[in-house]
C-alpha cells in the first residue's frame, strides 16, 4: 500500500496513459458510490417554493396544504451542498481522485434519468444508496478528453422506494484551460499537487495533518502501532484504535531518487524516503534540506510540516542534516 503523499500526479498527455487507466477504472464498476446516504433536510416547503420561484413554475400541485414537491427536485434532496457529501464510499472517492490525478479535474453532468415512483411531500426524509454502473473508456469531447462515470441511485422514504436517479458525469481534462494553452502569452497556472485521498479509514490522519500533528494509529486491543492508517489491526484483528502523536524523530530506512518521468508540480530529481519513526512505524514522504544525492540510509531526520500550496494543509516531510564536512 502506498502512502498518498508519495503518489505522483500524472497528466493525460498521451493515449498510453489513458490505456493504462482503463483496467483500473473498470474495477470500480458495480462498486457502491454512496452507502446509507440521508437527505440533509426533509422535503420542505421553503426549498420547494424557492425552486418554483426560480423556474417560474406556478403549478398548483406544488403549493397549498396538499402540496407535493416537483418531481424533478428528486436529486435536490440528495445534494451534499457546501458541507459536502455524506455516505460517499471510499471506492467512489478513490475513483474521483484517480481521475483528478490523471488531469481530469473538471466535471460536467451530461445525463440524468429519473423515475418517480410516488410524489414526495413535505416532511418526507429521503435515504439513498448508489452504485457505479459504468466507467467509459477515454472520450474526446469539445470540452476536453475524459471519462464518463454513470451512477444509479435508489431513493427511499421510510424504506419505501420513491424514485431512481441515474446520473452520468464527464470527468475531463479541460482542452482550453489556461494551464493547457501553449501560447506562452498568459502566465500559466502552476500545476497542483495531487490532493490527498481522504476517506473514512484515514480521515483521522488528515485531521491530524491539518493540526500539524503526525498521528499514528494504535490498536486498542493489543496496543500495536500501525501506519499507514487501516480500519483494523493486522496483529489481532481488532477494529478499535486510538492515536499516538509521533515525536518527530526518525531515520531514513530506505529511499529512492526520482529522475523520470517528471510530473507537474514536482521538480526532479528529488528523494522520496521511507522514514522509520522513533515509534517504530514507517512513513513515505519527502526528505528535504539535503541534496537528493546526499540522502543515505540511516540518516537521522526530523519531522516538519511544509505548506506547498495555499489553501491546502501543510504536509509532513522530513528534514535531514548533512554530516559536517571534514576540514570545513
Amino acid at each position: 500500500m502506498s502512502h498518498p503523499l508519495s503518489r505522483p500526479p500524472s497528466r493525460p498527455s498521451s493515449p498510453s496513459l489513458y490505456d493504462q487507466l482503463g483496467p483500473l477504472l473498470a474495477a470500480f464498476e458495480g462498486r457502491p458510490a454512496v452507502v446509507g446516504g440521508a437527505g440533509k433536510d426533509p422535503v420542505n416547503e421553503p426549498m420547494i417554493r424557492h425552486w418554483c420561484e426560480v423556474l417560474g413554475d406556478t403549478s398548483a400541485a406544488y403549493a397549498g396544504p396538499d402540496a407535493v414537491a416537483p418531481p424533478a427536485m428528486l436529486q435536490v434532496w440528495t445534494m451534499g451542498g457546501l458541507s459536502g457529501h455524506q455516505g460517499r464510499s471510499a471506492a467512489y472517492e478513490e475513483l474521483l481522485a484517480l481521475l483528478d490525478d490523471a488531469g481530469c479535474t473538471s466535471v460536467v453532468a451530461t445525463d440524468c434519468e429519473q423515475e418517480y415512483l410516488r410524489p414526495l411531500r413535505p416532511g418526507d426524509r429521503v435515504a439513498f444508496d448508489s452504485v457505479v454502473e459504468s466507467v467509459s473508456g477515454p472520450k474526446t469531447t469539445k470540452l476536453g478528453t475524459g471519462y464518463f462515470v454513470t451512477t444509479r441511485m435508489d431513493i427511499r422514504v421510510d424504506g419505501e422506494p420513491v424514485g431512481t436517479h441515474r446520473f452520468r458525469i464527464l470527468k475531463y481534462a479541460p482542452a482550453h484551460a489556461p494551464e493547457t494553452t501553449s501560447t506562452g502569452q498568459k502566465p500559466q497556472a502552476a500545476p497542483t499537487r495531487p490532493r490527498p485521498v481522504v476517506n473514512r479509514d484515514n480521515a483521522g490522519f488528515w485531521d491530524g495533518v491539518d493540526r500539524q500533528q503526525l498521528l499514528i494509529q494504535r490498536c486498542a486491543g493489543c496496543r500495536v502501532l500501525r501506519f499507514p492508517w487501516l480500519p483494523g489491526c493486522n496483529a489481532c484483528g481488532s477494529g478499535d484504535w486510538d492515536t499516538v502523536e509521533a515525536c518527530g524523530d526518525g531515520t531514513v530506512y530506505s529511499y529512492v531518487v526520482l529522475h523520470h518521468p517528471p510530473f507537474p508540480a514536482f521538480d526532479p530529481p528529488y528523494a522520496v524516503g521511507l522514514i522509520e519513526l522513533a515509534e517504530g512505524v514507517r512513513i513515505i514522504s519527502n526528505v528535504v534540506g539535503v541534496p537528493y544525492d546526499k540522502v543515505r540510509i540511516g540518516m537521522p531526520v526530523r519531522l516538519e510540516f511544509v505548506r506547498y500550496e495555499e489553501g491546502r494543509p501543510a504536509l509532513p516531510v522530513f528534514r535531514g542534516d548533512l554530516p559536517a564536512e571534514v576540514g570545513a
Partner: protein
Amino acid sequence: MRAGDELPPMEIEITRTLIVAGAIASRDFQDVHHDAELARAKGSPDIFMNILTTNGLVGRYITDFFGPTAVLRALAIRLGAPNYPGDTMVLTGSVEDVDGDTAVVRVLGANGIGRHVSGTATVRVPPSALGGTS
C-alpha cells in the same frame, strides 16, 4: 392526446440570475455555475446552467402543458450545448407514444449554439384532464 401532437414551444431567457439561482435552489455549488472566472479557468467561456435546473425546466414544460393533475413518472435528459448567460432556450415537445392515460413526450431544448437538451418525459394524465389538452 395522440401520438404526433405537438406542445406549444416555451421560451426561456437564460439570464445569469436564472443560472445562479437555479444552481443554489438545487444546492449545487459547483463553481462553474456561479463563478465566471473559475468557469473560464476550466475551459468554459462563462458560467453555465446546471443539469438540475434544466431538468426542472423540462419538468415545468410538461406539467405546464398537461396541468396540475398530471403526474410526471419519469424524465430522461441528455445535455449538449451549454446554456450560457444571454442566450435563449426554446423548448419544444411532441407526443411520441400514448398508452392508456400515460404519454411519452419527446422534448428538445435549442439555444443559440445548438441543442442544449434532448430527452423524454413520461407523464400520467388523469382522464378528466384530457378534454382540456387534446
